[in-house]
């Protein structure tokens, strides 16, 4: 742990990324206190007001303050990121450890399912599902989580394949520990490092996906403010009000960038070996 900190602190970019993620989380939590205006209150006298001292990021088509809406949007984005990564990690760990620990037929079936889900271009799959659902925030979290567990499953399986041959696992099996106990208490803790990295990098990917869906109009619905649907509204008035299209995008970029830097920093600090195996930067929408 100590050596982890030392290695992590040396990576200046990762530290900056970490600080920004913490700041963003605080901003999102304190949004009701910090927001200068009510994010839902329209003001017909200030339709599409350009950024100024009273409205730092301008106002939208019905005169709502964009900065306040973005602060509340941060809550949605971060919540979607964390919850959907939680869901995908749960499924990925469950299926990956089942496949890796049991091997044989169970492994073959689970891995073919992984292959199958991976064949569907993600956004096409999500659109097909979302067409028939009432797109609430919870539904968006669920569908993003349910379509992004495959990487985690593969990762966990690969870790299990190598760990289950190790002596400490054989010992606990030989004294009659149940399969669940061996998986949960002995193997999984040793697979935590790459898993943690994958989860950190999964958050920005989920945030990008949510904003893309909201941008298309099939994600979180108005009047809830999210970065994606502010951009969606901004597209309609792109020739009149650039601020609606610029600021929310900067927020997404900054959030995703800092989580990616943090994730890569954790990976390198935990184990330089992982540079190759666990990893790549998360975060393409597709």
């Amino acid at each position, binding site marked *: 742990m100590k050596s982890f900190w030392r290695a992590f602190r040396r990576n200046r970019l990762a530290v900056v990324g970490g600080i920004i993620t913490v700041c963003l989380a605080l901003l999102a939590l304190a949004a009701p206190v910090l927001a200068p205006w009510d994010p839902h209150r329209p003001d017909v006298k200030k339709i599409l007001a350009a950024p100024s001292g009273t409205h730092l990021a301008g106002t939208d088509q019905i005169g709502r303050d964009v900065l306040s809406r973005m602060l509340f949007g941060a809550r949605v984005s971060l919540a979607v990121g964390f919850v959907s990564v939680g869901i995908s990690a749960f499924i990925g760990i469950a299926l990956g450890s089942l496949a890796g620990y049991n091997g044989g037929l169970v492994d073959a079936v689970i891995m073919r399912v992984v292959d*199958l*889900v991976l*064949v569907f271009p993600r956004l096409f799959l999500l659109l097909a599902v979302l067409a*028939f659902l009432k797109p609430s925030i919870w539904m968006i979290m669920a569908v993003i989580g349910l379509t992004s567990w495959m990487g985690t499953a593969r990762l966990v399986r690969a870790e299990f394949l190598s760990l289950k041959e190790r002596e400490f696992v054989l010992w606990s099996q030989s004294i009659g520990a149940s399969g669940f106990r061996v998986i949960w208490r002995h193997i999984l803790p040793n697979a935590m490092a790459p898993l943690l990295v994958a989860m950190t990098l999964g958050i920005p990917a989920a945030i990008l996906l949510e904003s*893309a869906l909201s941008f*298309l*109009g099939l994600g979180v619905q108005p009047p809830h403010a999210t970065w994606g649907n502010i951009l969606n509204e901004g597209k309609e008035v792109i020739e009149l009000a650039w601020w609606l299209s610029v600021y929310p*995008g900067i927020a997404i970029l900054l959030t995703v*960038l800092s989580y990616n830097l943090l994730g890569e920093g954790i990976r390198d600090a935990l184990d330089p070996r992982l540079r190759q195996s666990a990893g790549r930067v998360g975060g393409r*929408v597709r």
Partner: protein
Amino acid sequence: MLVYALRRLLLAIPLLLGITFVSFLIIQLAPGDPTQMQFGDQNIEHSKIAWEQMNKEYGLDKPLHVQYWNWLSRLVRLDLSRSFAPHGRQVRTMIAERLPITLLLNIVEMLIILALAVPIGVLSATRQYSSFDKATTIFVFVGFATPDFWLALLLMILFSVQLGWLPISGLHSMNWEYLSFWQQQGDFLSHLILPITVASFGGLAGFSRYMRQSMLEVIRQDYIQSARAKGLAERVVVGKHALRNALLPIVTILGLSLPGLIGGSVIMESIFAIPGMGQLMVQAAFERDYPVLMGNLVVVSTITLLANLAADVAYGLVDPRIRVGRRRR
């Protein structure tokens, strides 16, 4: 080699069946009845009659497994049934109109990505920690974090609204019919510049990173040292000996990233109003036009599967170790 290719082909068959099964199931499991949504807000008595008629017409009154079998047997004959939209056109013709555009965009995008990512990756690997390498690393991080739809908006503001250099959306200008043949081609190309630039941007970040990584691993190997020791020029060592092996993993990554590239067309096409598969999918999702959704999903994922298969076979062709050894993970 033939055995290897055949084995890959055999493995793809259950996946193909799985694609049809998932596409069918997703839409059946969704709460709410696709036909009921069509008539939900009309007069109760009339809507009930219309709803029953529609269910009969589309065979939705039969049990699920019968519906699946009927759908599958029509699918084999490439009959994707008719759209729910008032025009009621064949889904097959709707897709046939749009598929070439999406394929064209994706192929051009892929070629551009490869043409740029390979030299960028090689250069930053051979000059590790140089300022060029650092600049590309920054580019990669920013590229990964930039939402492509936002980049599209920014470029639209800059080049279409402010500067007025490029058309804002669509594939043709309003005066398309009055242009000469060459002007038409120029007009078409100018409409493609922004979408293709944006779509290539994200992929470029990923691929140049992989290329750099792969090149770094190769140039540390012994045979590169011996090539240098033989007195070969650095250009030959890198360009010929190292590059060949460094390109191998890229073939696989190309296959793996195909669903992502194709999925990206959803966003590009709806922003730039390009009449392709992605835009069709978004429209169908809004209209809950489920024959179109199912047909689209099957076609797009089958194309991805075939492209993956091609990448696998290509990998076997370029790397003999794969054919002889056990299956890759």
